Each structure stands twice: as structure tokens, then as C-alpha cells.
């Protein structure tokens, strides 16, 4: 059996290619087209939004600090503590997140509600909730572990460069001050407080009978 060979020749260059002059003119045509298009867009201020139309023809620069490309929704940024309707943290201080945390960067000091509070005995609240963002490895296990959807990483903020280590230790007030990318302090998963009419069936206020 004989091997078949296919000889691929270098594409022949015509005299026009060789002279280079014509090719220079062609190249100038391309760059001039881009130049006039870009200039017209910038002068008229009528350029495609690089954030919303990243593949549109024309000037594509995102001027970063002024314009930002939003991160994907599943992107894990700086943590936030979600709020209840009344503005208190949803966290019930169950310590699931700090247990799940492989970097052990979460410190929670749980506290009981006052004696007369209906939630006493059922829930606790975090008196302190501290995350060392320098130690955090942004794995997202805390978010997975949380049974109350109280900790989320959907702020869309990446860690900024701060100039000392202490600044990276975020306390409860700071963690509660970040909204989500959608600019809400709540969570997408609604929380039904005990006795909520829209949430029929047994609960700890109505009892089971």
C-alpha cells in the first residue's frame, strides 16, 4: 500500500501583494474606517453601551471605575448578612457557617432573646458576627451551609485593597451594610415570620392543633 501524500503549497503571492503598496492602501482603508467610525461615535456621544452590548461594533472600552461590567449572579463576592423585614439580621446564630468554614474565618457570638420574647427558646441572634475577609478563601461553603439564607455572597463587590489588616475584619454592622447586586438588603427566599397568614399550616405561634 502506498502512502498518499497531499502537497500543500504556500499560497502564491501576486505581484500586487509583493509590491506591498496596494496592501498598505487596503490596510489603511480598514484602519481609516475604524478611525472615522470611532471618532463619530465618541464625538456624537452615541456609542454602544460597552456593558450592555459588549459585542456591538465600535468603541468597546469599559471605563472601569465609572462603568462596571456586573459580575455573574453566581459570582462569589464579599459576604453580606441579609435583613428581615424589620431590618434585624436573619441570622439565628446556629453556627452552621462557622462550622462549615474551611478557613475558620467566621466568629459568631450567639445571644439569647430576652425572656419575654416569643423567639426565645426557638432562635438565637448573633451578638457579634465577624468575618476575617483576608483569611476567607471565598469558597461559598458558608452560603451553602446557612439554613436561613442569612449569609450570601451576591454583593458583586470584590475585595478592595485596604491598607491594614484590621480593616479586613468585617463586623456585623459592616456585613449588614452591603446590599446585593440587585440593591436589596433582603433575600430572594422569603422568610415567613411565625403567624404569617400567607403561610398556612402549623407554626410555633398557631400551634399544631
Amino acid at each position: 500500500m502506498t502512502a498518499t501524500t497531499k502537497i500543500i503549497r504556500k499560497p502564491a503571492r501576486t505581484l500586487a501583494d509583493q509590491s506591498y503598496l496596494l496592501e498598505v492602501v487596503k490596510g489603511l482603508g480598514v484602519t481609516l474606517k475604524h478611525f472615522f467610525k470611532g471618532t463619530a461615535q465618541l464625538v456624537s456621544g452615541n456609542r454602544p453601551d460597552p456593558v450592555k452590548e459588549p459585542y456591538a461594533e465600535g468603541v468597546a472600552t469599559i471605563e472601569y471605575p465609572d462603568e462596571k461590567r456586573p459580575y455573574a449572579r453566581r459570582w462569589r463576592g464579599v459576604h453580606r448578612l441579609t435583613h428581615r423585614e424589620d431590618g434585624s439580621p436573619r441570622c439565628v446564630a446556629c453556627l452552621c457557617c462557622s462550622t462549615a468554614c474551611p478557613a475558620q474565618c467566621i466568629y459568631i457570638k450567639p445571644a439569647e432573646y430576652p425572656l419575654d420574647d416569643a423567639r426565645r427558646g426557638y432562635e438565637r441572634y448573633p451578638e457579634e458576627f465577624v468575618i476575617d475577609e483576608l483569611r476567607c478563601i471565598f469558597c461559598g461553603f458558608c452560603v451553602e451551609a446557612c439554613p436561613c439564607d442569612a449569609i450570601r455572597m451576591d454583593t458583586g463587590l470584590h475585595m478592595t485593597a485596604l491598607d491594614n489588616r484590621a480593616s479586613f475584619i468585617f463586623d456585623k454592622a459592616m456585613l449588614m451594610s452591603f446590599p446585593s447586586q440587585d440593591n436589596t438588603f433582603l433575600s430572594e427566599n422569603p422568610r415567613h415570620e411565625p403567624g404569617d397568614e400567607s403561610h398556612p399550616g402549623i407554626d410555633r405561634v398557631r400551634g399544631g392543633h
Partner: protein
Amino acid sequence: MLFWIQAFVKIALIVGVLVNMAAILLWVERKQSAMMQDRVGPNRAAIAVFGKRFRLAGLVHSIADGIKMVWKEDWEPKTGDKLLYRLAPIVALVPPLCLFAVIPFGPTLYIDHAREMFSPAWATEATARTVPLQITNLDVGVLFIFAVAGAGIIGSALAGWASDNKFSLMGGLRAASQMVSYEVAMGLSLVGAFMIYQTVRLDEMVAWQQEHTWGIFVQPLGFVLFAVSAIAETKRVPFDVPEGESELVAGYFTEYAGLKFGMFASGELVEVCTSSAILVTIFLGGWHMPFFTDRGLEFIFRGASAVSPEVAAQFVASHTMTPGFDASQGVTTASLLQHCANAFASVNGSFVWHWPHWAVVVVGLGNFVLKAAFLIFMQLQIRWTLPRFRYDQIMKLGWQMLLPAALVNVLVTGTAILFFNGPSGG
């Protein structure tokens, strides 16, 4: 006395414009390349005036660059040749500035008659005070340009040698060899133009082109050859092997910092300006534009006779004697312009629109500036379009293509002149 005043004013004007053009071209280059590459370009630097920040579309970056260069540490290589090291940037910047000395950038200004209509009689008046818009009118003309442009080599060669750095030395060598090679092609590419114009004086070249046609139409090959050589002389992309940042760090100015580096950089940009100005003067009619004469716009239909000065004078006189015009109130430029606009009329089958002398001078100056600006734009466009040539390609292009082509151009031009004018010559 007038001679000295006008010489100083013109020199100050030209040097001021050129040095500032270097700063402006820095901005143009950044912004233009950004536009070509679908970017925004520089736009962050701002000047704060009363709390308001003016960004001027990135023009402030040039100022910031200047400030940066002035304040940078003026570091010098310890083992280099101190004197030559300091001399090199000066030698690199001064020749491109000097080149402009012989370039006529506008028509001759008759200052005593600036508000009047042009009369050829002024030129023969013994007392006429003239200001030729050209710093000096040398008989050697273009040869001066070749000589001074050739001196530009010395700057980069000196820089390469005095830096005591192998990269610099290689860059200096490359710069010297490249510029010497392209000087040859550059000189020969203009011989055809000399043969047609029968002069090397630049003002006479412009006059020839005003009388006949632009040089680019009689010397198209010469124009291309000269343009290519001129771009090679500026040592910019695609002919920037002397700089060659991918191989030689920064070539001959590797060891330069601060304002000395700035002098090399602005020298390059000034060279872009001057080479454009030379191209405009020799091939694009200088300050001339179609139908533009000493007197204004004249469009002569075929078969119609040209307007004689007497007719023109009569023509203007007839319009200046119209009721709205009162000579006793003094001739204001505005009133004259108004009357010239009225004079836009058909004379003997031709469109004639005569302007006062100052307007002619201003328009001539504008022609020159616009044409030069266009060529500068095209040079920057070429610089940002083409990739760098390899060193052997540059030598091959210079010696094996441009030089023979220039010789052929001389041959063809000579043959054509003999054919059209006969053995006695033009």
C-alpha cells in the same frame, strides 16, 4: 531693521508652533490610535479650575507628560561619554526644527498694502516692504534640507555611542545605516522634480506649481518614493528598527530619561511635521490651492481670456464706488470684504472673486497648514497601521527597490521632458 524684526518673529513663530505641535501630536497620536483600535484613548487627566475638572478630551495628558519629564530624575550612565551623551538629544532635536527655515508657508505679504487688492506693481516697487512667509530663501533650497536632515543621523548615532550600552549602540548603528540608506533614495526621488521645476529653490517650486499643476500630478512616483523615504527618516513604525523595543529595549535612547528622552521623542514628532511640510511644498503645491491666485479665486473658463490686472482693478473700483461705500470713512476690512463678496461675479465668462491682500495671505497660510495637517494625519495613520519591517527588509526596500525606482523615475522624467520640449529643453 524690518528684516531683523520679521526674521525674529518668524523664527519664534515657527519654533513655537513646531515645539507645541510635538505636544499636540503626542495627543493626536494617542487619540488617533485609540480610535483606530476601537478604544477610548487618554481621557483621565484633568485640570481643576474652581473645582471644575476639565479633561479636554485627553489633551491634558500631554501637559502631564511634560511635567513628568521635567521632574524626573536626570539619570546618566556612569561610564558613558558625558559630553556626547548630553549633546545627542540637542543634535537630534535641532535639525528637524531648522528644516523649516527654508519652507515657504504662505504667499509674500506686502505689509503696506495689506488691506488693498493685489497689484503686481507692488512687487517692482522699490519701497515695497515685503514679508516673505519663509524664514530664509536660500538658493540651495532643497539641498539645505538634505544637508540638515542628514545631520539628524548624528544625534541618534551619538546617543547610541555615548550611552555605553550594547542595546543603545545597536540602535545607534541601525539608525545610522537606515538613515544613510534612505537619504540616497530621498535625494534621488526629488531629482525628477528638480528637472521639471528647473530649480531647487522652494519658493520657485511653489510658484511653478501655482502656474502649472501640483507636483504630485507630474511626479507621482517621486511623491511616493519621497514619502516612503521621509517616513523612514523619522525612524518611526514601520521603520523603527533603531528603536525596536521588542529587541533593543528602546534602541539608541535606552539610557535617556526625563527631558532628554523627551527631546528625542519630540524630535521624532517635529520630524513628522517637517517632512509633511516638505512634501506639501514640493508635491502638493505649498500654499497654493486650485483657482487660487495672488488676488483671490479666479476660475477661468476654457476659451475665456484671463482677467487682466487692469480689468480687475476697474472691477474692484466699480464696486468700491457703489453707494454703500464711502472711502472717506476709511477702508475697514469688514467693508472691503463685503464689497469683495459683491464682486463675486462673472467677468468675461469666468468666475472671479478677488479678496484684499491680507485675506489672500491668510487663506494661503491656511492652505499650507491644512495640507500639512492632512499629511501628518496620514503619517500617523500609517504608523499605527503597519507592522515593523525586519532590518534586512528595510535595507532591501531602500537599496533594491526605492533606489532603482528613483533612478527609473529620473530616466522617465528626462525622456518625457525631451519628448515634450525637444532637445533644447524647457
